[in-house]
């Protein structure tokens, strides 16, 4: 209810503004109208994304309504595919996307660092938290807490862990009950899963103890969050950790059997990184799209229609940086958009971590 | 005029030599049969002439045109040789009517529509198929199918017509009728024909000349009478008719005659072939063995094992020790021992 009203408000605010081609929005450079005109000349923007079409559709519709004449060609693929596509298309020198948008933060930063990104200071950049902007090239666009999920029908309220410490305790207290019923990402198959677990490892001083408790429960590691949610929802698994909150909350809306917990000790926050390619064929339209996504209007849609969570402090709603800060406060630990993400792309370090994790936490076969 | 000339043809499948140097000729209006047991290469020779097999040495000329020459690596493909070929299975195209089957060769030769209709219908009439033009092959009897196959091969007047076992798919009784009919047709239309058959009776009845093949070579060739009455090799003698065969040692040779002897018997016969060794094989056609009333030259006394009634005659079987004779006669004879005579001129000793 609240969100609907909110959206209505936001839309009114935008409608009250003069038309985009007549005058630049407040805070935008004065020559922004020229950018809009050039974008219309280009007529389209090609986006490669690892974000469900379902989540992106409201954004695309709103963007096309805002800038009639600029069509969005949206390609949804998984994160590795996106990375492959980018590097191989660049090598082949053919057409490629104008904007890349992926939840695989480390690969996105690698692409930025490898010189794939166009430097563009978005007029909205100042409205973003510092950790979300890297070199005016890569921009964090969403605010997605990393959560636990559990089966509400089968798990007693007192069994539900409220923090990472709880998780270890609950598992240790009742190993038989959770045997084969704990799920998370297979970090070898999922880049996101790997990223999250390494963040855990650096944030949680008791990480390897927790890993031991996890290993004792013979966890079932999956390559996708969908599978995890399906299995927790059906009761095949009881508990899952390190799921992307935006997906989990949406699923929980449809499936009353799924409960979502944001761990109290610390809640990781992931942000989808977007950048414009250096070789973009439609650079102006691409800039328009990036600015739109970061704008209050775009972020409002992200928070309330796409369900991805707004990164801006000035957007209201349940799933926003603002809203989450109220309940979790300092426990929120956003993953920094920056070169820190590259640590584990070093092959030796990565394999070493995987090995250690598997020896400690993987199911005893 | 020579319509077909094959010279020193060699052909093999891999390392397996099928034809080992075959030469032959076919004159205008002549019917030549390729006769031989299975595996002798007769069908391969026919198919090589048709262009369906690839020889690797020798040459083939059709109607004065070189169609294959191993030396110059010339090979005219089958469709350019302008031959008529009648298959053993008839190979009628099941998706075309009788008319279309016969007309196909003319269509390929870009004959006008009316000319095609006229030629096809006259060919069909010639072969007694006038009313069947619109039928499909599966609606025809075996004999009718055979005629369609022949009509199809004849309709464009090929210089030579090739027939591969044309009668073997018919049942025994029809085969004899078809044989006579085919011979009549060949004479009437003055065809030059090369016929493959494994049946010596068929070969003799239909052809002017017979080529007997054995293991990829021509064993003997000649008119039917020569082949039957004067074989030059044991193989030819054996293949051409129904024979009694006697193994023994050659005791004496004199004036073109030889004396074949065994355990308690000896027979004089014509010395044939170039055998000069100590052992020999006697051969005599069943119909040449005579019943005799008492002892005499070239006569043996043997016990009758059985007599079999064949309808138009009787066949007797005599057997004792290594000697085993069959003979024909016109009445049943009683059990017991009988004298039989092998006339000196009819017994060939190889």
């Amino acid at each position, binding site marked *: 209810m609240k969100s609907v009203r909110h959206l209505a408000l936001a839309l009114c605010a935008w409608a009250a503004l003069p038309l985009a081609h007549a005058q630049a929005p407040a805070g935008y450079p004065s020559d922004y109208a020229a950018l809009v005109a050039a974008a219309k000349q280009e007529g389209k923007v090609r986006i490669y994304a690892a974000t469900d079409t*379902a989540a992106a559709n409201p954004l695309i519709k709103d963007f096309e309504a805002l800038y009639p004449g600029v069509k969005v060609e949206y*390609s*949804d693929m*998984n994160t590795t595919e996106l990375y*492959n596509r980018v*590097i*191989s298309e660049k*090598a*082949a020198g*053919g057409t490629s996307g104008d904007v890349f948008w992926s939840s695989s933060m*480390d*690969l996105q930063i690698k692409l930025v660092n490898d010189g794939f990104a166009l430097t563009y200071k978005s007029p909205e950049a100042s409205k973003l938290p510092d950790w979300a902007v890297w070199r005016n090239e890569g921009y964090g666009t969403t605010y997605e807490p990393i959560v636990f999920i559990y*089966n509400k*029908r089968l798990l007693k309220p007192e069994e539900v862990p409220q923090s990472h410490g709880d998780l270890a305790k609950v598992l240790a207290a009742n190993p038989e009950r959770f045997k084969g019923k704990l799920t998370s990402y297979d970090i*070898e*198959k*999922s880049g996101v899963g*790997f990223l999250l677990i390494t963040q855990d490892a650096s944030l949680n001083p008791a990480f390897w103890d927790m890993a031991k408790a996890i290993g004792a429960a013979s966890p*079932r*590691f999956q*390559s*996708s969050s*969908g*599978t995890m*949610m399906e*299995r927790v*929802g*059906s009761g*095949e698994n009881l508990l899952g950790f390190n799921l992307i909150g935006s997906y989990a909350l949406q699923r929980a809306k449809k*499936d009353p*059997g799924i409960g979502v917990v944001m761990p109290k000790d610390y809640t990781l926050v992931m942000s989808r990184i977007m950048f414009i390619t250096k070789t973009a064929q439609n650079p102006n339209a691409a800039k328009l799209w990036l600015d739109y996504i970061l704008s209050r209007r775009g972020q409002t849609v992200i928070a309330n229609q796409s369900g991805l969570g707004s990164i801006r402090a000035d957007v209201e709603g349940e799933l926003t940086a603002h809203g989450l800060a109220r309940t979790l406060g300092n426990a929120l630990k956003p993953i920094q958009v920056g070169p820190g993400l590259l640590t*584990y*792309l070093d*092959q030796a370090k990565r*394999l070493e971590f995987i090995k250690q994790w598997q020896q400690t936490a993987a*199911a005893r076969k | 005029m020579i319509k077909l000339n094959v010279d020193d043809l060699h052909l*093999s499948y*891999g*390392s397996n030599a099928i034809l080992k140097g075959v030469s032959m000729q076919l004159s205008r209006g002549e019917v030549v049969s390729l006769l031989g047991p299975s595996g002798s290469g007769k069908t391969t020779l026919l*198919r090589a002439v*048709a*262009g*369906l097999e690839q020889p*690797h*040495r020798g040459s083939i000329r059709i109607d004065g045109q070189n169609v294959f020459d191993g030396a110059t*690596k*010339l*090979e005219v*493909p089958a*469709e*350019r040789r*302008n031959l008529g*070929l009648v*298959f*053993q299975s008839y*190979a009628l*195209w099941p998706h075309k009517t009788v008319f279309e089957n016969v007309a*196909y*060769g003319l269509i390929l030769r870009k004959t006008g529509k009316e000319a095609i209709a006229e030629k096809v219908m006259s060919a069909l009439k010639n072969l007694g198929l006038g009313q069947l033009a619109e039928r499909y092959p599966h609606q025809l009897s075996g004999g009718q199918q055979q005629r369609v196959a022949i009509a199809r*091969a004849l309709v464009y007047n090929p210089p030579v017509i090739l027939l591969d076992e044309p009668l073997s798919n018919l049942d025994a009784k029809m085969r004899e009728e078809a044989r006579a009919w085919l011979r009549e047709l060949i004479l009437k239309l003055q065809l030059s024909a090369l016929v493959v058959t494994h049946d010596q009776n068929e070969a003799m009845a239909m052809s002017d000349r017979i080529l007997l093949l054995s293991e990829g070579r021509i064993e003997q060739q000649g008119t039917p009478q020569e082949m039957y009455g004067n074989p030059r090799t044991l193989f030819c003698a054996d293949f051409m008719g129904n024979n009694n065969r006697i193994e023994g040692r050659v005791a004496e040779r004199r004036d073109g005659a030889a004396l074949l002897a065994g355990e308690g018997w000896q027979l004089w016969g014509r010395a044939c072939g170039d055998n000069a060794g100590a052992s020999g094989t006697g051969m005599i056609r069943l119909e040449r063995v005579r019943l005799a009333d008492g002892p005499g030259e070239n006569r043996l006394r043997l016990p009758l094992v059985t007599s079999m009634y064949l309808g138009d005659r009787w066949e007797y079987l005599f057997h004792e020790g290594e000697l085993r004779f069959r003979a024909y006669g016109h009445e049943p004879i009683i059990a017991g021992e009988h004298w039989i005579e092998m006339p000196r001129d009819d017994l060939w000793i190889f």
Partner: protein
Amino acid sequence: MSSVAATVPAAAGGFPGRQWSRGMVISLTALAVLAPILLILYQSLLDAPFFDQAAKPGFGAYRFIFDDPDFWSAAKNSCFIAVGMALIAVPLGAALAFLMVRTDLPGQRWLEPLLLIPVFVSPMVLSFGYVVAAGPVGFYSVWFSDLFGGVPWNVYSLTSIAVIAGLTHVPHVYLYASAALKNLGSDVEEAARMSGASPLRVALDVSLPMVMPALLYSAVLVFFLGFEIFGLALVLGDPEGHLVLATYLYKLTNKLGTPSYHLMAAVAVCIIAVTVPLVMLQRHLMKNAAKYVSVKGKAGRQRPLPLGAWRWLAAALIAGWLVVTVLVPLSGIALRSVVNYWGEGVSLVDVLTLDHFRTVFGQPALMRGIWNTVLIGTIGGGLAVICYTAIGLATHRQPDGWSRFVDYLVLVPRAVPGLLAGLAFLWVFLFIPFLSPLRSTIFAVWLAYTVVWLAYGLRLVSSSLLQVGAELEEAARSAGASRARTSRDVTLPLIRHGLLASWLLVFMIFEREYSTAVYLLNPGTEVIGSLLVSLWATGGADMVAALSVINVVLVAVGLGVALRFGVKLHD
């Protein structure tokens, strides 16, 4: 031999047109087959993606995977599954063939079309179905455990994967065994019975040895398909960490954080190193089987063997097999597609919904996927059959070196897992300039499918071609028709029913294919198969179920049309 071959160019001399088109067909085939495979081989010998400037040659990729214990565990599992599949599928397939061809089993006419269904259902669909139907809290598992207090099976175990794979490959064996049995005249069996052998002895002493070549052939086929198992292992094996070679390969996409093409290519080369000898062995067996045909009995009328009371048991066993391999998973997936959620303690009646279908129909990308799947099956299948026919005719009854070359050539794609073939085609489309505009069109997927299924399609077409008596073509040649003209006027009209049947079979195979299109997935190239893999990875279980049902419906329509037109699904 050499002199025979030497005359070929001479023969060709007179007919440049014909030889030109033949050469064209053969070289296009060679290009389509060899370009991707050589790319894979080349990639496996580099230490970075081949398009990377910094890529250096070396055996590092092989060293890496040979040092990786996961590789060996995957190889071991693949062997286990392949052996298990063969052990299950071959005896069952042979028994099924015997029952169907030789006995008075009731309901044969109804059973026959049903037997092949497992071949045409995508393994992805089957696996989702098994998870939903027979997983730890699957629909049937819950009912079963309510009745009996527990579930004795675990669909995620390696054994289950082998059993399911084995059961779903029974039709492959059945096809070959039944064809061999049909060719085997009943006279040889009757001779054995006259000598005093009981029906069982006849089956074991006469029929079995005589169809042995066919069984051996299909055993090799199944064993070899075992190495390509991907969907089943991905869905069922992953959560418990059971890797097979194909899923190990898939896993390498992420293991190093950035995609490791060189490692994937090295695994692919290892898979090919196993499958190529198997394909060769198969070819060798096929030749031997052909030798057997010449000594077979007269194929005449066959009197069915009376089974007596056993016939009902046999029928029940077959029905049971169909229930386990078809009904359970498909009903599971169908049920999943109309409920919001499921599991222990959920009353399904309360959660019924058609939302998933509505969502599917509301998403342009998914609709495009469905439409593309239909297109690629119908028009694409037709075009593929045309290509296969062209290749078939180029080698038809021309036993020369080129035909042998094509013979081997078509086996090559068979040995490459579809997943990797798709990746190789992506590279081909990226880096061959005139092809790159076609990359994001359905043509890319079509080409990949057509090449991947080359051996299968060509077998369909050439079995039709071989049924045309050589003499029918020779008759046309001697009547004056060139080879091309003969093909047009005689061969093609005679095999048109065979081609129609091939089209339908290729349609169903294309509907079912999934792994090949995974790496080619792009806006515009979506097909249901690749969408299933992609949605499974991003977690859209609802969409997966709905799309699976749509996929099954498409295949069922194809099957229905096939049966309606009396297409024999096998010879």
